[in-house]
């Protein structure tokens, strides 16, 4: 077991070292190096964005593109104080959340539960009932802000303070949204929760 742990640790360091070399090259304008970073981190970046936008694939793909463009722009400022993957993951989440915040003023982003109910299910509409709906779909069907808070807190592991700051809301609002999201989730999952 120790051998496996050591191997995994070494692999992680190797990946980080490779990332840093690619980051330096990318920051200097090497697009081939940046493409290598894109290939390496695409799944993680697209994954978090997809969850935050409720599995709307087209929207998630647009935001994933935007995240990598923003990463390319921001790379010269990367200080190597954290793993590149962590930095990129955060940037990707922020890209999706910025769009979420920009939609806050629209009717679909306000607190009207009925108006929100259908948001975020563009690719999963008509798939089964609440009882047979799997967890991923149930999360996708949550109202956007409640979904964002639940995904960030319960899936991605963010703290309420971080969520509140990123979503420009009070910490108490983040906690309230999480409570609401969990309640909705349990209701939609029925006895399975």
């Amino acid at each position, binding site marked *: 077991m120790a051998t496996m742990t050591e191997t995994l640790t070494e692999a992680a360091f190797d990946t980080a070292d490779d990332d840093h070399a690619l980051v330096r090259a990318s920051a200097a*304008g090497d*697009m081939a190096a*940046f*493409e290598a970073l*894109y*290939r390496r981190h*695409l*799944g*993680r970046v*697209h*994954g978090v964005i*997809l*969850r935050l936008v409720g599995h709307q*694939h087209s929207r*998630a*793909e647009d935001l*994933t*593109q935007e995240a*990598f*463009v923003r990463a*390319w*722009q921001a790379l010269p400022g990367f200080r190597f104080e954290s793993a590149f993957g962590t930095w990129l993951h955060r940037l990707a989440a922020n890209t999706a959340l910025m769009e979420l915040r920009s939609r806050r003023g629209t009717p679909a982003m306000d607190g009207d539960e009925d108006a929100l109910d259908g948001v975020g299910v563009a690719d999963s509409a008509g798939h089964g009932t609440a009882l047979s709906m799997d*967890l*991923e779909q149930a*999360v996708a069907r949550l109202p956007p802000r409640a979904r964002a808070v*639940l*995904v960030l*807190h*319960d*899936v*991605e*592991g*963010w*703290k*309420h303070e*971080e969520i509140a700051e990123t979503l420009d809301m009070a910490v108490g609002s983040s*906690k309230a949204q*999480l*409570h609401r999201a*969990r*309640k909705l*989730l*349990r209701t939609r*999952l029925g006895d399975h*929760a």
Partner: protein
Amino acid sequence: MTRSRSTDDLSPALRLQLRGLRQDALPQRDLWPDIAPRLSLQAREAPASEAPPRRRVLPALAAAAVLVLAAGVGWLQRPGADATSASAPAGNAVAHAAPLVVEADAMTREYQGALREVAAMLPDAGEHATLSQLDASADLVRDALAQDPDARFLLQRLQRIYAQRLSLTQRLARA
């Protein structure tokens, strides 16, 4: 990112299931063909995108320099300027000196306004030794003018220092 403890309204099973959702997901198509042109466009535009702030600085500096020169030259070439100082009776010197000081104040305010615009884009400009010397010289000339408010050559000197200061800042902006 540390997980908080607000999991009291979540069953352990559901909490684990939610953690399990943290999985990589690939898009349904390769996005690189759409991303690459945007990067190469930015790469080509990068030098140009850095240039505008300086290009915006230079007209501001040029305008400021012209303003200072115009203020100085305008005052110096006003009708009867030479005759006023040359022919003024000694007893009226103070009365004629007041407009000179007022003019110097106005010129300084215009100069400082233009410089503030530039300083916002060249935050380190104030630390340049020559610029500091020029600023110190301008202060000395202003003090001298306050002591001798009829000394038109001091106003000329002040105007030249301001012009030099703006010209040097302009060259730093180009560097």
